[in-house]
């Protein structure tokens, strides 16, 4: 079962950028890549909770603004030898609108 919620237009997020959605479980960062792919992951770095939505987005990864860990947006895994991962959420874009699956938020 999925429960898609329309949260915003794709263009509300700059390319190679991110913005957050507030949820009952903390902030979820929504990323838009240069190729217009969209990802949703927890806005907290597995290292020391750095706000990942404030990082620099490159390819399908983000570099944490606090100590430069690199997190893969699709899998939520850290890259380059660091240990850790963040939760990812189902998200899609349809007709220019971003739809977030809120069932995956409750897990």
């Amino acid at each position, binding site marked *: 079962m999925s429960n898609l919620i329309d949260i915003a237009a794709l263009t509300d997020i700059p390319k190679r950028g991110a913005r957050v959605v*507030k949820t009952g479980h903390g902030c979820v960062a929504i990323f838009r890549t240069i190729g217009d792919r969209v990802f949703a992951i927890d806005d907290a770095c597995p290292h020391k909770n750095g706000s990942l939505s404030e990082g620099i987005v490159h*390819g399908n990864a983000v570099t944490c603004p*606090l100590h430069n860990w690199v997190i893969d947006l699709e899998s939520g895994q850290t890259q380059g030898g660091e240990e850790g991962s963040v939760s990812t959420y189902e998200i899609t874009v349809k007709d220019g609108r971003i739809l977030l699956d809120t069932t995956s938020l409750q897990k």
Partner: protein
Amino acid sequence: MTQKLVVIGAGMASGRMLEELVDLAPDAYDLTLFGAEPHGNYNRIMLSPVLAGETPWQEIITHDADWYHTNNVTCRFGEDVVKIDRKQKQVISAGGVTDYDKLVIATGSASFFIPVAGKDLPGVVGFRDYGDVEKMLAAAQKPEGRAVIIGGGLLGLEAAAGLHEQGMDVTVLHLMGHLMERQLDPAAGYLLQKELESRGIKVVCRAHTRAILGKDHVEAVVLEDDTIIAADLVVMAAGIRPETRIATDAGLHVERGIVVDDAMATSDPDIMAVGECVEHNETVYGLVAPLYDMAKVLARTLVNQAASFVPPMVSTKLKVTGVELFSVGDFCEGDDREEIVFRDPSRGVYKRLILENDRIIGVVMYGDTADSSWFFAKLKSADDISEIRDTLIYGPAFQGGEAHDPLAFIAAMSGDTEICGCNGVCKGIIVSAINAGAHDLAAIKATTKASASCGSCAGALEQVLAVTLGDDYAASTPQPVCGCTRLTHEEIRQEIKSKALKSIPAVMQECGWTTSCGCATCRPALNYYMIAEWPLEYVDDSQSRFVNERNHANIQKDGTYSVLPRMWGGMTTPDELRAIADAADKYNVPAVKVTGGQRIDLLGIQREDLPSVWADLNAAGLVSGHAYSKGLRTVKTCVGTDFCRFGTQDSTGLGIKLEKILWGSWTPHKVKLAVSGCPRNCSEATCKDVGIICVDGGYEVSVAGAAGMELLETQPLAKVTTEQEVIDLTVAFIQLYREHARYLDRPYKWVAKVGMGWVRERVVDDLQERAELCERFEISQSVYRKDPWAEQAKPEYEQSKWAPLADLILEAAE
């Protein structure tokens, strides 16, 4: 009695459908064809070469009077159908009422006119039909006529190229960051822009049209940033909209287009639709290939054969003579996707293949599209390419079979094979140079010029070195900026200057970046180099900024921020202090601290409060202290002659003057100054990036000190007698640093590389150079000497940047 088939719209889809139909069953229907245009079906695609004067209009007519006659088609050209009466099964037009048994709607699309003032003025045209082309050709008759094209997609660029061929002065306004963004990635878009510009077509990206001006005819276009571009002709090429009005009025199911099923039937079984006016499976189409497939299906449906429409893969080519461009499929990046990028900057060639599970899913090619059909075929057949992956990008000619060892490949190369395309250096010349003692890249470059231009052959040179020297070879390349490129910071700055590269994608293309959009190391550096080199033209890329510079505050370990307003030269007033205290109270600031930079820091501010904190501080006259920037930080001062019994000059006043001149400027790393009123040096000037010590009768200016991770005393630059000279020397030194240092080198590191002698020659001895440096700094400051807080606190930033994208907590509560 034969059934009556009425077709509305004599366009490309209906033309093809009629051909298919008369082939299948010549006498199945009594055919009537309505067309709003005064002529029959023609090849709309070829309007571009007609506009460019390359193809005569007669040659693009696909169906002539003879054809309609032979196939018994009653033509009603120049006659709009204004209404469909489904109950009576009739269509209504100027000529009256026409009965139908079956009806086909093939009304295509209409140009979308962006909703700005002046869009209806004479002289503003779309680019859709021959009537539009006639109007454009008439406008091009005017000597030195100026055309503005709104929209830098396929249509807009074909219009631009055509009008340029017709002798008009053409400017293309494009809303997005690069041309044809729907078909091209930024690198290819950049190459295309460069090509058009080299022909004399002006291209403005990120252009937001505010209005079209003119009294009784168009005169100019004005952009949101107040730029005014004179125009005798404005072509709206900002998109198309399916022409669905009569279908909507008739109560058919219409979404973006007229909704049809796989057999092309609308929600009324006696009414079919085909072409750009339809929506199939939530998709509307804008290229002919799928429309032709639809036409085939519809013809079968009309003779009661089962057929269903399967959307084909569609590729795009731009019909501008001399521009080779091809794109197909999906070119977004993805984790499960890989890409193979080939760039040959000197030939202006760029190819990118996007792979998923060892299959090609997207292709972008610019400059050399000879192999496009081969790639397209591989994409359509979903061939597994893992066997030929190594040589795939080189196309069919290279598919010999076995994978090769690159060194063996280089070893087997003949002496006259060209290695450096820019400078035409062959392998033989490089081998001779190596044998004569050039044992590293720099030496080869110096003696042969190989890799001296774009540098993309550096890898091949390295391999020639390895092959030639054998065991004596030791990799000796200087450190590249990051893993995305082979070039060093210095080489990149050189390329930016010599090739006038004015955007990050341009640098990535010309310097052979191996990733599509860089990384967190190279992007901030490139963004700085752009700002430093093209202060007036470059638009700062906030997505290539570190968090602090993007948010104009220092992020703290818990995600809050510190806010640090400027206190010019360390001076403040009771009013300023009250404003700071009020802000601290109002926003529950957990800590207020006097910094080591002679000003006051508010620590622990919530992100969403930043704009209002700034607005409050702005209201009291306080501006950003840039405590977060690679830019001017503080100018510390001591009290000087105003109060101190030892003071020799007005150190406070001079410090304030310097800070007011320098603030807001971006530099390779941060820059800190201090001015002390006497050699007792209470402002610690001798460990700053620029330190000034006032003495009797003058000022001692010294530079390149450090008091952070390293401790270094400044080195004397010059001793001068007037404040103006101090200011000029300081500004010239900082500008020289801005123009030459690599990103993230403090001045002391940079001076250690170039030498104090070199700096003094330019800043102290050569008065003309000093003046020019100051002038260039001032040009840059005309843009950057402003308060970023005031800008960021503006209401329009609130929704797009500071507010959350959505608040699902509230949603849940509701």
